[in-house]
C-alpha cells in the first residue's frame, strides 16, 4: 500500500450536498407521483386490550375510499421483527401498545383517508398493563405475551467476585436510570408502494436494511423476495430508528389493492413518536470494587432494559450493553445479570450507541466516586486500569485488535478543556453559577458480533467514458458514507470522485452488504469496494487498454461483462462468550470526552459550554465528516443527559411532538472540539474502523461528572433536568430514588429473574405470532 493517497483521508465535500440543499426531490417521501392515493394506519386506542370486533363496513362505504384492510388481508406471516417476528403487521387478538396497527386505509386524498379511520369500529376489552420493567419480571405481573415478560436473560460470571468485594478497599454501589430517548430524525417514516405493470412490487422508503426489509415483506406477503424491490436511500435521518420495518409492510399490503396506483404514507410527528422505536430505558444497579492502590477488582451489575411491547433488537441491545459493562478497563472478576423485558410502554429498539450509553454512565460515575474516595485524579485512575492489547475485557474477550483507549486518553489529557480546566472553571461570571469539568471514556463494538452473519458486498460497473457506478445496499442516512464510498472507489480505481456514482439501498441494483447499523458502514462498504475494485482493475488489464474509457469500448466490442462483484466476511472473534448471543465483538472503536458545564444554582439549569471529543477512527476516511459526526453525536448526548425523555404514563405518550419533546437547539449545544486519533486497524479498509456511534457514548457520563465537579451532587437519573439538579442540590429526599424499598424490589427482581422459567432463548424456540385460525384449532 502506498502512503500517498489521493482521496482517502481528505476532507472531500459531500457529494450529496448540492441536490439536498437545492430542495431537489431526493428523499423517498418527496418523490413526484402520478395519480397517487394516500394511506393511513389505524392505531390502537389502548396500551393493552383484547380485540373483540373490527368492523370496516362504514369506512369502506365512504366515497373516495379505495380499500380498508385488516389482519384478514395479510396473506403470509402476520408478524415481523428483526430477530423474532413477534410484532403483528395488523393486530388480531390483542393490542399491546398505543402504536399497534389494526387496519389500513387507502383513499383518494389524505383527508378522506383520515375520515375513513374514524369510521372503523373496534371493540376492545381493556387489559391490565405493565408499565414498569422491574415489575414486569415479578411473578403475577400482567403478561404482554403469553410466553412471559422476560424476552432475554443474560448472565455472565467471571472470576472470584465475592472474594474481590470482601477484599476491596472501596466499594461503590448505585442505581442509575436512563430515559426513553426518541430518535427525532427530521424526516418521519414514510414512503410509497406501487404494484408495477411487470408484477413486481416496488417500495420507496427510507430504511437501514434493504435486503432484510425485502425478506420481511416477502414473508408477510407470501411472495418470492425477487418480486419485490426496495429503494431506501437517502434517509432524512435514522440513528437506528429506521432499522426495523417502519411503513414498508403497510405500503406493501395497500399497494396490492390500489390497482397499480402508487400509495403514499407519511407519518405525522405524533404518529411517528407513538409507533416508532425508542432508545431502551435502562435501570442499572452497579457495584464496583477497587483496591487501595486504585486497581479495579470487580464489577457487579443488575441491568433491566425496557423493550416495550415487542422485541425488535432488544436482545442484542441488552447484550451489547453487557459486553461494555466494564468499559475500557480491566476487571478480573464480573457478575452481571441482565434482563430485556416486555412492557406496554411503546416499543424500543436500535438507537445510536445501542445500550452502551445506558451502562457507561453508571460505570464512569462509579469510577469518579472511587477516585474521590481514594483521593485520586479521575483521569489518572482510569489510565491505571486501561485494558492493554492482549488483555481480557471485563466479559473475558481477548482484545487482539487495535486497542485505542490509551491513545484517546492521552489526547483528552492534552485537550484544552481538560488541560486548562482550572482557568476555565474560574472564568465563571455570575456569582450564583458554578462550573465543573467531567470526563468519560468508552469503547464500542463494531459490526454485528460473534455468530451473526456479517458480510459486505459491492458491485462496480464500468460506464462509457471511463466512469463508474458503485452499487451497495448500505444506505446514506446522513453519516456521509456515500462520499466515503466514492472516495474508496476513486482511490482504488485511480479516478476522480466526480467520476463515481454511488447507488445505495436499491435491492434491484446494489449488492447486499447488510445494514447501516453498528458503526459498520465505512468498514463494510470500504472493504467491499476495495475487493470489488481489484476485479475492475483485472478487467482493465484483460482488455489491454490504457484507460478505463478505452477499456469500456474494448469490453463492449468483445462482449465482456462490465459489471463486477465482490464480497467478504467480517472478521470475528475466535471464541464466543457462553450464554451471551452475539458476543463478543472483535473490533472496537474508542472515544473520550471532557465536558465543561455551568450550573445555575438558583434554578438547577445546566449549560454545557464546551466538549472536547476524542475519537479513534482507525484511519479517518473523511476528517470533515468525522468532525460532523462527532459534533452531532455530542449534541444527541447532551439531549440524552439533560433534556430528552419520551414520557409514557400508563402506556400513553405525553410528549409526542417537537413542541413538548425538546431536542437541543442551536442555543443548547456546546462548542465541540474534535480530536481524531488514528489507531491503525490492519483488518480494516486502509486501516479504518468506523466511528458513527462512538461520540454519543461518553457524553452523558462526562456531563454528570462535570455537574458533580461544579456543585457536588451526583445525578442518578437522566435526563438531569433543572428540577432534578435543583432538588439534588437542596438535598430533597424526593431526589433520592435509591431507597431501601427500591433495594428490596431489586433483590426480589433478581431472585424472580433467575428463577423464571424462560420459554424462549435467543435464536430458538421463540413463539411465533399466531393467526386467529390457529387459535380456533
Amino acid at each position, binding site marked *: 500500500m502506498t502512503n500517498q493517497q489521493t482521496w482517502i483521508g481528505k*476532507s472531500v*465535500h*459531500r457529494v*450529496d*450536498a*448540492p441536490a*439536498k*440543499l*437545492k*430542495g*431537489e*426531490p*431526493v*428523499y423517498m417521501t*418527496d418523490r*413526484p407521483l402520478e395519480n397517487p392515493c394516500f394511506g393511513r394506519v389505524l392505531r390502537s386506542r389502548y396500551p393493552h386490550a383484547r380485540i373483540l370486533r373490527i368492523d370496516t363496513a362504514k369506512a369502506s362505504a365512504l366515497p373516495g375510499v379505495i380499500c380498508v384492510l385488516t389482519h384478514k388481508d395479510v396473506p403470509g406471516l402476520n408478524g415481523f421483527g428483526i430477530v423474532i417476528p413477534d410484532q403483528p403487521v395488523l393486530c388480531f387478538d390483542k393490542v399491546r401498545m398505543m402504536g399497534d396497527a389494526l387496519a389500513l386505509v387507502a383513499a383518494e386524498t389524505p383527508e378522506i383517508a383520515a375520515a375513513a379511520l374514524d369510521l372503523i369500529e373496534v371493540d376492545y376489552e381493556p387489559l391490565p398493563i405493565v408499565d414498569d420493567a422491574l415489575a414486569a419480571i415479578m411473578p403475577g405481573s400482567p403478561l404482554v405475551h403469553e410466553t412471559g415478560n422476560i424476552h432475554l436473560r443474560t448472565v455472565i460470571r467471571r472470576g472470584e467476585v465475592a472474594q474481590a468485594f470482601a477484599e476491596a478497599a472501596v466499594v461503590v454501589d448505585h442505581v442509575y436510570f436512563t430515559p426513553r430517548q426518541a*430518535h*427525532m*430524525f*427530521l*424526516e*418521519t417514516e414514510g414512503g410509497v408502494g406501487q404494484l408495477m405493470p411487470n408484477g413486481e412490487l416496488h417500495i420507496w422508503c427510507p430504511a437501514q436494511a434493504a435486503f432484510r426489509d425485502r425478506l420481511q415483506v416477502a414473508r408477510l406477503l407470501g411472495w418470492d423476495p425477487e418480486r419485490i424491490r426496495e429503494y431506501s436511500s*437517502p*434517509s*432524512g*435521518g*435514522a*440513528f437506528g430508528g429506521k432499522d426495523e420495518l417502519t411503513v414498508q409492510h403497510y405500503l406493501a399490503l395497500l399497494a396490492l389493492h390500489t390497482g397499480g396506483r402508487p400509495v403514499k404514507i*407519511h407519518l*405525522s*410527528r405524533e404518529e411517528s413518536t407513538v409507533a416508532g422505536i425508542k432508545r431502551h430505558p435502562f435501570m442499572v444497579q452497579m457495584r464496583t470494587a477497587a483496591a487501595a492502590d486504585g486497581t479495579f477488582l470487580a464489577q457487579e451489575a443488575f441491568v433491566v432494559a425496557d423493550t416495550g411491547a415487542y422485541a425488535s433488537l432488544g436482545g442484542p441491545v441488552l447484550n451489547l450493553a453487557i459486553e461494555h459493562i466494564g468499559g475500557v478497563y480491566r476487571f478480573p472478576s464480573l457478575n452481571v445479570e441482565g434482563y430485556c423485558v416486555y412492557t406496554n410502554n411503546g416499543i424500543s429498539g436500535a438507537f445510536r450507541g445501542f445500550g452502551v450509553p445506558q451502562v457507561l454512565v453508571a460505570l464512569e460515575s462509579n469510577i469518579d466516586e472511587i477516585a474521590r474516595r481514594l483521593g485520586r485524579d479521575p483521569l489518572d485512575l482510569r489510565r491505571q486500569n486501561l485494558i492493554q492489547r492482549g488483555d481480557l475485557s471485563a466479559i473475558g474477550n481477548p482484545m487482539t485488535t487495535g486497542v485505542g483507549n490509551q491513545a484517546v486518553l492521552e489526547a483528552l489529557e492534552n485537550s484544552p478543556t481538560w488541560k486548562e480546566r482550572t482557568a476555565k472553571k474560574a472564568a465563571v461570571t455570575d456569582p450564583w453559577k458554578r462550573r465543573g469539568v467531567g470526563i468519560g471514556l468508552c469503547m464500542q463494538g463494531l459490526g454485528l458480533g460473534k455468530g451473526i452473519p456479517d458480510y459486505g458486498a459491492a458491485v462496480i460497473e464500468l460506464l462509457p467514458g471511463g466512469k463508474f457506478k458503485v452499487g451497495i445496499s448500505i444506505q446514506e*442516512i*446522513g*453519516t*456521509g458514507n456515500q462520499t466515503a464510498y466514492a472516495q474508496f472507489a476513486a482511490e482504488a480505481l485511480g479516478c476522480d470522485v466526480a467520476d463515481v456514482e454511488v447507488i445505495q439501498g436499491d435491492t434491484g441494483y446494489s449488492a447486499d452488504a447488510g445494514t447501516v447499523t453498528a458503526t459498520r458502514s465505512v468498514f463494510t462498504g470500504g472493504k467491499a469496494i476495495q475487493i470489488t475494485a481489484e476485479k475492475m482493475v483485472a478487467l482493465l488489464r484483460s482488455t489491454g487498454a490504457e484507460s478505463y474509457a478505452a477499456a469500456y469500448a474494448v469490453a463492449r466490442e468483445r462482449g465482456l461483462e462490465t459489471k463486477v462483484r465482490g464480497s467478504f466476511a467480517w472478521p470475528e472473534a475466535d471464541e464466543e462468550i457462553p450464554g451471551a448471543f452475539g458476543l463478543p465483538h472483535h473490533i472496537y472503536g474508542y472515544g473520550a470526552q471532557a465536558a465543561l458545564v455551568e450550573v445555575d444554582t438558583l434554578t438547577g439549569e445546566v449549560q454545557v459550554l464546551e466538549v472536547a471529543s476524542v475519537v479513534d477512527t482507525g484511519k479517518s476516511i473523511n476528517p*470533515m*465528516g468525522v*468532525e*460532523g*459526526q462527532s*459534533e*452531532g*453525536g*455530542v*449534541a*444527541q448526548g447532551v439531549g440524552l443527559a439533560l433534556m430528552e425523555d419520551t414520557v409514557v404514563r400508563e402506556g400513553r405518550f405525553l410528549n409526542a*411532538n*417537537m*413542541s413538548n419533546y425538546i*431536542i437541543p*437547539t*442551536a*442555543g443548547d*449545544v456546546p*462548542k*465541540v472540539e474534535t480530536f481524531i486519533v488514528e489507531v491503525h486497524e490492519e483488518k480494516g479498509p486502509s486501516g479504518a474502523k468506523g466511528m458513527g456511534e462512538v461520540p454519543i457514548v461518553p457524553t452523558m457520563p462526562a456531563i454528570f461528572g462535570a455537574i458533580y465537579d461544579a456543585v457536588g451532587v451526583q445525578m442518578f437519573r437522566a435526563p438531569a433536568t433543572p428540577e432534578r439538579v435543583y432538588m439534588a442540590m437542596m438535598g430533597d429526599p424526593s431526589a433520592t430514588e435509591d431507597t431501601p424499598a427500591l433495594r428490596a424490589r431489586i433483590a426480589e427482581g433478581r431472585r424472580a429473574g433467575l428463577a423464571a422459567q424462560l420459554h424462549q432463548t435467543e435464536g430458538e424456540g421463540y413463539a411465533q405470532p399466531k393467526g386467529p385460525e390457529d387459535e380456533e384449532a
Partner: protein
Amino acid sequence: MELKMNVNGQPVAVEVAPTEPLLQVLRERLGLVGAKEPCGKGECGGCTVLMNGQTVNACLVMAAQAEGAEVLTVEGLAAPDGKLHPVQQAFVEAGAVQCGYCMTGMVMSAFSLLQQNPQPTEAEIKEGMEGNLCRCTGYQKVFDAVNLAAGRLR
C-alpha cells in the same frame, strides 16, 4: 378558492381550500418539495420559506394568508443553470450537511439573516438559526457556513 401569488418570481394561480397550509400548497400542488414537514407545528423550521421578505413557517401559514404574496422557496435560490447560491455553496464547503433534511430550512433562515444583517456576530448567528432544528449536526458547521457565506456576500 383560487390562490394567486408569486412563487420564486413566477406568478401562480392554484385552486386550494382556504384552510390549506401554504406548505401543502407548495409541496402537493406546486411540486416544490424543498420545504419539509418534520413537525407540522411551527417548532422545527423545516418548512421555512420567505413570504414578503420575512421568514415564515409555511406549515402555519394558511393558503388565504398568502394571497398576493411574494414567496421565495429554496428552489428559487440557485441560479437557473443550477449553480448554487453563495449561502448554499457555503453549506457545502463548511460540511454542514449530514442527512440534509433540515438544511433547506436552514439555508432559508441563513439567507434571510444575512439579508437583514450582512455581518452577524457569533451570538447573532446562533440566535438567527435557533428556530431551525437539526438532529444530525450539532449546529457548529451550520454556524461556520453562515460565517463563510457572510464573508463572501459582503
